[in-house]
């Protein structure tokens, strides 16, 4: 199978004519097949961020506590006591549609490697998921596979899965989103980077063997390449969490020695991107001899090995005199270990196989001349406000319907398949607080972790939606008493070559950037997933809702001060923040009136900050028994969630707000929290001083939620409604 390299092949590989011309210019000749493969993956959207880079650069990425921002395998922040938290989120959307179990599983595997490659022991996983209409059988299959896959991988490697989020919308029918986040912990002075150094130093391959998995998964289908080979060339990668677990332990053991100069996981575009990036960052050349690459299948070509996306592999540059120490460690863990090359001073990557030079590419132009596009963008006009609102049902019927609706129903069916306690450090499991809390062993520190995004807000107004996603994440971390430190993002959008999609993308980033700046919440890592579109039977394409998922991290200096969201007995219930009754794009509007309309609730970042800082202070001062931030579903849904958590009820007062009841109870105004306190008057006095609106909603006690009308809904009844959605869906 000898393919001639020409422009047509370059196009099959996903390069444009101009890009191919640039390749020829850099090489000064027609590239070899392997070289073309290297260029095409390095210049793919996935590796080069060619449509997004210009805009990503506008995000704030620094703060005194940021140790490494974007550009490394994951973001690194100082959390105190000599420790750093290392975290990142990454998508595996397309693979999860093709093969939900393996797609999601390998997504978890990939993000774990991004984190432990920097020297961190992974301590928590989260996952942000978006599925199509729950009614379709294919959605159920995808949910089943994705949840099993995330659990199958995370449970086996022994990293607790402590949080995440799930939304449903028909826009995800052909494009489910699987965004996985990993958080790890390292000593602040023991962080490993990927820049190679030391001419002559050995380049070492460890982990699983290389097979023909996922070759060119990112840029083209291999079917066109050679039809007969399709069966032999699975684009689906199969994960082996057992090997990953060994790899984590072996790498951490090696990292405790001083053998490593640089290390990088082999992610997308495997050996190509890892070797090119390590050498490129270090400003050195690299020679690889593929004869020495551990191979799973006979007869693999250089092209196949360079582009394989086989999982559970890492590339390292070692100090030559420590190579044997390293080899012993990997032998102990029964993993492949091979010296496959060395660093050079040529500034080129040279790939040899069976005595032939299969590729010889200058690294600087490969990186520096990678395309960057400033794609045309059009902004979508903000939607008109909603009008003609009326409540067709009683308050209790609407509440019961909402807590059972797909986006608000209990996710316990999902998280009960994820090991959330392994490690013995999980202080708050899923559902117990707005952010999950994981203690850092041998310290008093706790990490607060969450993922957030409200895609329907982003669809209506991408800028507000981008800001809201960041604000909600910040609020969730604040609500447990933690100090928000930094975020990672996963920007999931449609085809950037469409001006309106590019417009959404740019607007969402503007909103995110504004919020991150105002809240001192820099972006330290992230991932972009574009082209999330499905061709419709009529030839048109359907794009997903713009989904800039935010993963966020905060720290508690004293983890004992963390609080949860469960209603506490015999306490005052106070609402913090102002309520205007924003029903545009609300869950209420969609679930009760069947309308997806209006403008999302405005995000006022100064208010967000003031209210949040106040709540956090109150929590850390020990005045707050429990706290829940307000989001989807508004006040009444939040109260119901607090009641359901531990079965402690409450009696609500008439709001006398001058707002329509449904707008008061279900409006999704931002920057709000509900707190349980022993002494409401004192809290309200302090709030007034701080310029923070606060009002008493009622008192806790009993086991019923009692509405101002006197109508009583038992915690048990709420729970039945809340808990039934997932099991019923998945049993059908």
């Amino acid at each position, binding site marked *: 199978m000898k393919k001639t390299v020409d422009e047509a092949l370059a196009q099959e590989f996903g390069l444009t004519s101009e890009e191919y011309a640039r390749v020829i210019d850099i090489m000064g000749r027609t590239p070899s097949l392997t070289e073309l493969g290297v260029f095409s993956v390095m210049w793919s959207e996935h590796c080069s961020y060619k449509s997004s880079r210009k805009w990503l650069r506008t995000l704030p990425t620094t703060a005194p506590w940021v140790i490494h921002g974007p550009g490394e395998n994951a973001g690194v922040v100082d959390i105190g006591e000599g420790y750093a938290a290392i975290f990142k989120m990454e998508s595996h959307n397309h693979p999860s549609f093709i093969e939900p179990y393996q797609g999601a599983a390998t997504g978890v595997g990939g993000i774990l490697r991004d984190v432990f490659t920097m020297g961190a022991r992974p301590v928590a996983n989260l996952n942000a998921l978006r599925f199509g209409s729950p009614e379709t059988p294919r959605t159920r299959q995808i949910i089943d596979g994705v949840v099993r896959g995330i659990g199958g991988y995370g449970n086996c490697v022994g990293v607790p899965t402590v949080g995440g989020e799930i939304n449903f919308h028909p826009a995800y029918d052909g494009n489910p989103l699987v965004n996985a986040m990993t958080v790890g912990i390292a000593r602040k002075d023991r962080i490993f980077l990927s820049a190679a150094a030391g001419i002559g130093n050995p380049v070492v391959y460890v982990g699983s063997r290389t097979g023909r*998995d996922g070759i060119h998964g990112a840029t083209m289908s291999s079917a066109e390449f050679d039809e007969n080979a399709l069966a032999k060339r*699975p684009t689906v990668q*199969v994960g082996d969490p057992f090997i990953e677990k060994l790899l984590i332990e072996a790498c951490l053991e090696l990292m405790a020695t001083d053998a490593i100069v640089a290390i990088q996981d082999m992610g997308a575009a495997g050996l190509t991107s890892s070797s090119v990036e390590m050498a490129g960052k270090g400003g050195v050349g690299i020679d690889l001899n593929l004869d020495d690459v551990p191979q799973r299948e006979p007869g693999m070509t250089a092209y196949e090995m360079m582009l394989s996306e086989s999982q559970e592999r890492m590339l390292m540059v070692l100090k030559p005199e420590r190579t044997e120490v390293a080899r012993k460690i990997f032998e102990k863990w029964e993993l492949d270990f091979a010296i496959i090359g060395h660093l050079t001073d040529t500034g080129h990557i040279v790939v040899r196989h069976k005595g032939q030079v299969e590729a010889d590419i200058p690294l600087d132009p490969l990186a520096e001349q990678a395309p960057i596009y400033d794609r045309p963008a059009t902004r979508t006009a903000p939607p008109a406000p909603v009008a003609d609102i009326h409540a067709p049902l009683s308050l209790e019927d609407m509440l019961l319907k909402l807590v059972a609706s797909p986006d608000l129903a209990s996710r316990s069916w999902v998280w009960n398949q994820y090991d959330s306690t392994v490690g013995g450090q999980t202080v708050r499991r899923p559902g117990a607080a707005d952010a999950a809390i994981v203690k850092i062993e041998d310290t008093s520190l706790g990490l607060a972790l969450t993922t957030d995004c409200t895609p329907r807000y982003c669809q209506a107004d991408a800028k507000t939606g981008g800001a809201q996603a960041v604000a909600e994440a910040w609020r969730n971390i604040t609500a447990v008493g933690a100090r928000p430190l930094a975020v990672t993002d996963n920007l999931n959008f449609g085809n950037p070559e469409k001006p309106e999609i590019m417009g959404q993308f740019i607007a969402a980033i503007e909103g995110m950037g504004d919020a991150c700046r105002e809240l001192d919440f820099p972006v330290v890592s992230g991932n972009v997933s574009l082209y999330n579109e499905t061709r419709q039977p009529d030839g048109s394409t359907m794009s997903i809702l713009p989904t800039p998922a935010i993963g966020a991290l905060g720290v508690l200096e004293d983890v004992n001060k963390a609080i949860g969201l469960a209603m506490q007995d015999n306490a005052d219930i106070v609402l913090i923040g102002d309520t205007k009754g924003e029903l545009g794009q609300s869950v209420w509007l969609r679930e009760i009136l069947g309308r997806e309309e209006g403008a999302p609730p405005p995000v006022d970042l100064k208010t967000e900050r003031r209210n949040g800082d106040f709540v956090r202070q109150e929590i850390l001062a020990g005045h707050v028994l429990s706290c829940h931030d307000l989001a989807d579903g508004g006040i009444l849904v939040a109260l119901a969630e607090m009641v359901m958590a531990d079965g402690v009820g409450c009696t609500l007062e008439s709001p006398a707000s001058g707002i329509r009841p449904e707008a008061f109870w279900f409006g999704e105004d931002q920057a709000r929290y509900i707190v349980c306190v022993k002494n409401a008057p004192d809290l309200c006095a302090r709030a007034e001083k701080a310029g923070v609106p606060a009002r008493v909603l009622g008192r806790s006690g009993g086991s019923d939620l009692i509405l101002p009308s006197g109508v009583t809904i038992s915690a048990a009844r709420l729970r039945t409604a809340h808990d039934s959605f997932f099991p019923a869906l998945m049993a059908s």
Partner: protein
Amino acid sequence: MKVRVTVMLKEGVLDPQGKAIGHALHTLGFPGVEAVRVGKIIDLDLKSTDAQAARAEAEKMASELLANLVIEDFTVEVLG
């Protein structure tokens, strides 16, 4: 009719189980093992009394549910 559906990973797809078992057999003192592949058997008792029909039915079940054709192949065998 009794029908046996055998499901195996496609050639080239990583078989983590097979790999681990092969490894374990080596350390257990079976150096003569060169490769291990793991598969699934689904034995079906079908009402049908016609071998032809039973096979067709089983093939349909296999491609719709029993095998994941993205990564697996299957064979059907009528046991009688």
